[in-house]
């Protein structure tokens, strides 16, 4: 196990991510933020608070559970079972400028599932993707619009993001991938 980002580095990386997003946003765009369960949700809340401070008005913030949209539901995974959790999006996504937030971008399959789930909720004006870590090796034509850091990680390793809100500590670690 090695540490990719410690607590302090996470704070600066989130700050840097926020700067990129804020610089890009037009004040008139009808922004809403949606985080992917569960680490994307935490990051979405943190970015949301900063954006609300900057723009001085509330920004709708929701959470998407993509389990029902996963493309591996019918593929045996050695007994590991996905847990369905709630999607909590209490605003209309139609014509919104949606900032989709996840912790790590890897294969792109979660983002694909998230976009399908989002489409079933309505028709946003635009969707952008922000991630804390882009580790590359996408298997689908999906790229992030805003990236905290890019990391070169071996396919045999997995990147784990821990947040105080969920795990009691802020850190990004790289560890050997769990073998299926």
């Amino acid at each position, binding site marked *: 196990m090695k540490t990719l980002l410690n607590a302090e580095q996470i704070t600066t990386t989130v700050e840097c991510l926020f700067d990129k997003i804020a610089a890009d946003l037009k004040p008139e765009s009808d922004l809403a933020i949606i985080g992917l369960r569960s680490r994307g949700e935490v990051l979405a809340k943190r970015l949301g608070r900063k954006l609300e401070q900057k723009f001085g008005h509330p920004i709708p913030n929701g959470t998407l559970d993509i389990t*029902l949209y996963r493309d591996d539901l019918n593929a*045996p995974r050695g007994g590991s*079972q996905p847990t369905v959790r*709630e999607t909590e999006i209490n605003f209309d996504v139609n014509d919104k400028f949606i900032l989709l937030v996840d912790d790590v971008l890897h294969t792109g399959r979660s983002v694909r599932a998230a976009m399908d789930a989002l489409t079933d909720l309505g028709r946003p004006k635009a969707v952008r993707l922000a991630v804390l870590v882009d580790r590359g090796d996408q298997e689908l034509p999906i790229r992030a619009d805003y990236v905290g850091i890019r990391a070169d990680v071996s396919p045999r390793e997995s990147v784990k993001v821990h947040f105080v809100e969920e795990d009691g500590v802020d850190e990004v670690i790289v560890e050997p991938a769990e073998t299926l």
Partner: protein
Amino acid sequence: MTKNTFQWTRKHLIGLRELSRQELEFILDTAKGFEEISTRSIKKAPTLRGKVVVNMFFEDSTRTRNSFSLAASRLSADVIEFTKKSSAVNKGETLIDTARNLEAMGVDIVVIRHNAGGAPALLARSINACVVNAGDGFNEHPTQALLDVYTIRQMRGSLEGLKIGIVGDISHSRVARSNIYAMTKLGAEVTLIGPPTLMPAKVRDLPVKVSYNLDDVIEELDVINMLRIQFERMGGNPFPSVREYSHFFGLTVERMQRAKKDILVMHPGPMNRGVEIESEVADGPNSVILRQVANGLAIRMAVLFLVNQASVQG
């Protein structure tokens, strides 16, 4: 926040008697994630795309059958509706042959309602598809009880320590049996209320209290579940008249005045208004009867999802 490492391993849902508290809670937690589907503009998720669900109903049903159909459709499964009236069962085909034939067409999940208790269990032993019990004889009706406890949990947070009364025709009620298993496992105290002639023979073996007088217990109940008198299943005369039954065991406005202010009034349907429940109570502020129906969809989606996952991963 705790990581959920629980694994659901059952590819059939036959009854709640064999389920652990943890399994019950896992179904309820999973169902929460399905509630939102019914609130969207596009009420569909691709979860069971390409799967085939057959609704085999050997008994009449509107609520349960439509609820299972809709649950399967909302998860993008293909649904075959099978009813006894229009099938080869009338030509003498056995249950297992009928099911094997359907299975040969590639059915993944069989939802079955049958007038014989044990029919779903028999089917589960005989075919490879997942089997979900939608009510068998006097035995169990697991999804009804699941939606009942889901509704109580939604309204009260937990069943722990709640006093729940189940009133009426207990002996003919598969809903009551499944209810007893689910509610007691989740920590509630269940009292069965009705005339002695409508109590099951082995009521002493169940982890419940029994009362033959609704007025004795109404004041202490947190939840009251009113069962329908199943005239179609009755032999003999378990009570002198419907009027007398209503007088002693009907949930009337007058009785409600002696109940706790926030008592939850439940009914599995179909209701006989004026018999076991007065209209004013069924439609009143304490009634969660329509909420039960809405929650049934989420529960059935969750059950279809879980048995299919167990089948794929098993």
